[in-house]
């Protein structure tokens, strides 16, 4: 009985968290649009949200290879979301603090965990850009340059 009450309360309270639309000219808005493009599979648009320095380090081909290498093994078996915790720094360089919640696997073998990430953002011209090579919100493995 107590369990049923807990379950009902949890289900009633635990609806999806409100998704906030951040302004396009804010660091949060840039990161949000990058994630939206990434989740839709539009890697070219996602890549455009990286800073010049990051794009020099990791061109679109390298980005696509990194995404295939890092994301290929999971695909539909993984559900994840990014929650915005806060911003530190000021001026043209800030750091966005996020909590990532991931749910991987299927059936009773599935598991759920969360971790924190900090994403550096820089202002380039009028727009904010991501100043770290990423695959979704995880650091991208850099390829050696010859």
């Amino acid at each position, binding site marked *: 009985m107590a*369990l049923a009450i*807990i*379950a009902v*309360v*949890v*289900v009633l*309270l*635990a*609806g*999806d*968290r*409100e*998704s*906030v639309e*951040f302004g396009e000219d804010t660091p*949060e808005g840039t*990161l*949000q649009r990058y*994630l*939206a493009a990434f*989740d839709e599979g539009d890697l070219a648009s996602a890549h455009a949200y990286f800073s010049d320095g990051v794009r020099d380090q990791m061109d679109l081909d390298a980005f696509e290879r990194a995404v295939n290498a890092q994301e290929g093994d999971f695909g539909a078996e993984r*559900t*994840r*979301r*990014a*929650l*915005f*915790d*806060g911003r*530190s720094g000021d001026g043209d360089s800030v*750091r966005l*603090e*996020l*909590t990532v*919640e*991931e*749910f991987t696997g299927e*059936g*009773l073998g*599935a598991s*759920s965990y*969360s*971790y*924190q990430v*900090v994403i550096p953002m820089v202002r380039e011209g009028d727009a904010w850009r991501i100043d770290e090579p990423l695959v979704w919100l995880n650091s991208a493995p850099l390829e050696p340059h010859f």
Partner: protein
Amino acid sequence: MQIARRLYIYLLSGISLGVLVAGLSMLLTVLLERIGLGSSGAQLSGGDVVGQQLTLASALVVVSLPVWLIHWSAAERSVRPDRETAPAERTSEVRGLYFAVAMGALLLAAGTGAASMLESIVVRLADTDIGSRSIGGGLALAVVAGAAWLYHLWIRSRDWARGPMTGAGAWLPRTYMYVAAFVGLMLLLAGVGGLMEVLGRLVLDEPPPYKDPSVSSWWAYPLASSLTGILAGGGVWVGHLVYANRLVDDSGWRGASERPAKLRLAYFAAVLIAASAGTIFLLAEAVGNGLAVPFGISDGEDTPQVIGLILFPLLSAVAYAIAWWLHGQWMEAEAVSSGSDERVETEDRLEHYPVALVGLAFSATAVAWIIGVLIDATLGGGRALSGGDVWRRELAEWIPLALIGIAVWIWRWRSVGDRWAVDPIGEAASTTRRAMLLITLAAGVLAGIAAAGLILYRLFGSVFGISQAGDPVSELSTPVGVLLVGVAVAAYHGVQLRRDQSMRTDLDASRGEPVVAARIDLRLSGPPGADPSGVVAALRQQLPPGYVLETTEER
């Protein structure tokens, strides 16, 4: 048959309980995070993780709850007082093992949850971006696992209240109790050490070298980590030790069972070993950081930094020394109040031998290393030729460890010598002494064998003209040091062992008991009407000196 049934019942109970705790804590996590104890911010992107979590949690609970209820009810039915077999079930080793493992696992889960929750609270208060901000996950695990742990504690206390327990049914849960107390104390001491360092660095405004000094809240995560160790570890230690002490003070059969328990002595000995090792190591670190100044290799850039480098390990060493002293006092007081001379003797030995062993281990390792460094410095090995301050740095690190280790060893070994002077035979017959000598002999022999192997490999390689990488002096300096120290340690303790053996043999002889070095049991049979006793008597006449032929059974 009963053992197989018990194994099945308790195994299934344990597994289903684990799944149930996981499911309930996941359910509670979602609830707590939803009411504000999770990540504080808005969802930036992503899918329905909460829905997935709820689905998994519900499935885990629905599957595991009936399985656990059925099996645990069966376990509980079997110990109902109206059952004839209840005493055997209640005191069975399988039930004892179940409680030891289940309570250990639940405590670990609850402690991990509490630690995670405390860390998140400090991280939130410090407003730093390092570490988890979600309090809900840790709190949920602490609450669910803690509740299951309390339930098991209550059931076990009820088991004890129904009558005495002996054997594995008693000592397996006791093992859990003292292991938990020991681990809790170690976490507490590590937390105190960490807190001393964080507070010291905050006072001196000196972030540790591995932290980015531009990040103003560099102290938040170390502070969270050390406070967690103090609160969670300290709570576990105090709780279990207070409970154990109440058992010792009990005037009934529980106290009678607990007071002579060897596991309690083992706990004290383990704390003495760990706390003395921590004290020696941290003290040596402080002295080494001080010694680095005249050696010109200090990591401190200015006087406050140098003071900090000396002071922080020193303050941590004080915490370990207090734990060492306290446990020594408690163990001694208990032995005296027991009124047993044998217990007093055992306690006294446990205060001396294990600590002497720790001092010897540190000093022997350090001396072997120092010999290696000196060989390098004298004959031009890598550590001297590479330039810079490698060998000076190593000397500053190892000399204090050698000196403090030797001082502790001499301090405790002199007490051992005093004991020997008073009662050499009693000392030679002691198991504690024999174990300490054998452990040291084994360590010395093994270290010597490993070092000799390396030296001979290099030597034979040269004889057979095999090309070998590395400079010979650098490659051989440390093995030579280890070999010299290993041989010296093994020889000294080997001589002590032989002397003890000889005294024990003399003792046996003085008691008039034959010293039996080897024995063969024989069976003598003969034809009808034979006289085996006469044959044995005739055989006895033929035996060489020192041989005895005994009749054990005559038919």
